[in-house]
C-alpha cells in the first residue's frame, strides 16, 4: 500500500516537473515579435561555463547582437510612432551591428536593470545612456565614452530651483539606479528623494507637482524642459562631468577591444556628430553646442 502511494507520488512529482519544463519551453516560442529577449538565450547556455558572455564569433554565428537600450528615454533610446527603436544610442547600436555583419536584437531596460542584464548575460552590450562610475566599473567593463553629461535640475518656472542649497528640505524626484540618485544620496542628505522606476513616471510626478524638482542628466532635462512649457532647467551642471560609454560583461575583453577599435574608427568619419545631427539636434535645437555633448574617439577634453 505504502509502496503504491510512493510510486504514485513519484509519478505525480515527475508530472509536475514535466509541466514546469513544458511551461518554460512553451514560453520560448512565445509572441516573439513583441518580446525583447527572443529565443537564442536558451541556446547560448549549453556547454559553456557559468554565464560567460558570448564571444565575437558566437555573436556573428547567431546573427544577432543583443543590446540593452532604453525604450522610453527620447531622444537617446525610445520607440518611435511605428514601433521601431530609435535615438542616439540606437543609432550607434545599429552601426555596431552593421559593422559586425549582424542584426540588432533590442532588450528594453529600466535604469536599474542595466548592470544586471550584463552580469546575467541577457545582452552583449548595454547602450542605455550608461554613465561611467567607479561603482559600476566594479561590476561591468566600460568601453571608450561616446558622450558626456553632468547632472541638471528642472523645476517649475514659478518656483525655480537655481542652486542646490534651495533644495534643502524639499522633495526631489529621481529615477532609480541613475547617477542623480547616488549623487544626492551621498552629497545632499538634507534633500528628500522621491524615487521612480520609470522615467515616464518621474516626469509625470513632476508635472503633477508631487515633487519640487526633478534631477537627472542635464541632456535629458534640457530636452524635456524645451518642450514642456512652464518648466525650466535652473541648474545645468552639478557634480563632475561624467562620461557615457557602452558597457559589456566584466572580463569580456574581446568584445570590449572590438568596440574600442570601432569607436576609434568611427571617430575618423565624425560618426557621433552625424549621430547628434540625426537624433539629438531636432530636440535640442541650435541652443546647445554639440561638442558639449558628443565625444569622438573616446577623447574627453
Amino acid at each position, binding site marked *: 500500500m505504502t509502496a503504491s502511494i510512493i510510486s504514485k507520488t513519484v509519478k*505525480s512529482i515527475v508530472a509536475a516537473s514535466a509541466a*514546469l519544463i513544458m511551461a518554460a519551453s512553451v*514560453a*520560448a516560442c512565445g509572441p516573439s515579435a513583441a*518580446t525583447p529577449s527572443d529565443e537564442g538565450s536558451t541556446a547560448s547556455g549549453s556547454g559553456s561555463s557559468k554565464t560567460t558572455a558570448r564571444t565575437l564569433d558566437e555573436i556573428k554565428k547567431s546573427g544577432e547582437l543583443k543590446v540593452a537600450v532604453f*525604450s522610453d528615454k527620447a531622444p537617446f533610446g525610445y520607440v518611435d510612432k511605428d514601433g521601431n527603436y530609435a535615438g542616439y544610442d540606437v543609432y550607434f547600436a545599429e552601426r555596431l551591428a552593421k559593422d559586425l555583419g549582424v542584426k540588432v536584437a533590442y532588450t*528594453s531596460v529600466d535604469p536599474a536593470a542595466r548592470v544586471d542584464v550584463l552580469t546575467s548575460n541577457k545582452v552583449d552590450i548595454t547602450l542605455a545612456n550608461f554613465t561611467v562610475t567607479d561603482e559600476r566599473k566594479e561590476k561591468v567593463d566600460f568601453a571608450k565614452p561616446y558622450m558626456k553629461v553632468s547632472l541638471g535640475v528642472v523645476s517649475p518656472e514659478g518656483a525655480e530651483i537655481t542652486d542646490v542649497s534651495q533644495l534643502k528640505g524639499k522633495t526631489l524626484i529621481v529615477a532609480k539606479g541613475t547617477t542623480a540618485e547616488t549623487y544626492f544620496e551621498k552629497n545632499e542628505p538634507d534633500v528628500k528623494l522621491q524615487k521612480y522606476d520609470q522615467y515616464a513616471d518621474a516626469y509625470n510626478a513632476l508635472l503633477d507637482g508631487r515633487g519640487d524638482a526633478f534631477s537627472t542628466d542635464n541632456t535629458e532635462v534640457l530636452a524635456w524642459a524645451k518642450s514642456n512649457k512652464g518648466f525650466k532647467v535652473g541648474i545645468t551642471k552639478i557634480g563632475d562631468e561624467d562620461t557615457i560609454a557602452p558597457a559589456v560583461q566584466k572580463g569580456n575583453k574581446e568584445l570590449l577591444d572590438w568596440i574600442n577599435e570601432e569607436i576609434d574608427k568611427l571617430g575618423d568619419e565624425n560618426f557621433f556628430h552625424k549621430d547628434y545631427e540625426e537624433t539629438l539636434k531636432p*530636440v535640442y535645437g541650435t541652443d546647445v553646442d554639440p561638442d558639449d555633448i558628443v565625444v569622438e574617439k573616446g577623447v574627453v577634453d
Partner: protein
Amino acid sequence: MNGAEILLQPGVFPRLLQGLWVTVWIAGVSVALSVPVGLIVGWLMTMRNPVIRLLTRVYLDFIRIMPQLALLFIAFYGFARAWNWNLDATGACVFVFVLWGGAELGDLVRGALESISNAQYESAYVLGLGPWQTFTRVILPQALRRLLPASVNLATRIVKTTSLAVLLGVVEVIKVGQQIIDANRFQYPTGTLWIYGVIFFMYFIVCWPLSIVARRLEKRWSHD
C-alpha cells in the same frame, strides 16, 4: 492641444493591442499550466503522508511569503547567474506565475476536497464505487463547483500581476503605453491619462468576461 488626440495617432492602437496580446499570452499560458499543477499539488496536500504534507506546506508558504517581484528577479537574473540557466523574460514570467498559480490553486483544491464530507466517500463506497470512480464521479464534481469562484479570482489576479513583467523588460501593454507616452511627450504632454485610461479598459475587457463566465456557471450549477 487635447491629450485625447494621442489616441488617434496612427499606430497607437495596433501597438497597444500587440502589447495586450503579450499580456494575455503570458497570463493565458500561466493560467492554463497552473491548472494541472494546482490539481496535483492540491491532491498531494490532502495526503496523510507527513513528508509530502511538509513539502507541499513549505512550497505553498514559500511562494506565498515571497513577493512575486522577488520571485521574478530570482528566476530571471538569479538562475542565469547561479546555473547559467538563461530563461528569456517571458519564460521567466510564465515559470514564476505557474509556480505561484499552482501553489495558490493547490491550496484552493485542497480546501475544496477537504470540504466534501466523509459521508460522500462512504456512501460512494457503499454503492460499490472504487476509489478512482469515487474521486472522479462523486468528489471531484462537487469540489470543482466550490473551487470555481476562487479560482476565477485567482486567474484575474494573474492577469493583473503580469504587469510586473515590465520590470524584466517584457514589452507588454503597460510598457508599450509608456513608450507611446514618452515618444509623444513633446506633442501631447497630457496624453498620459488617456493612454493609461485605455490600458485600464483593456485589462477590464480581459478580466470582466472571466467573472461573467464564473457567475453563470455558479448559477447554473447551484440548481443541479
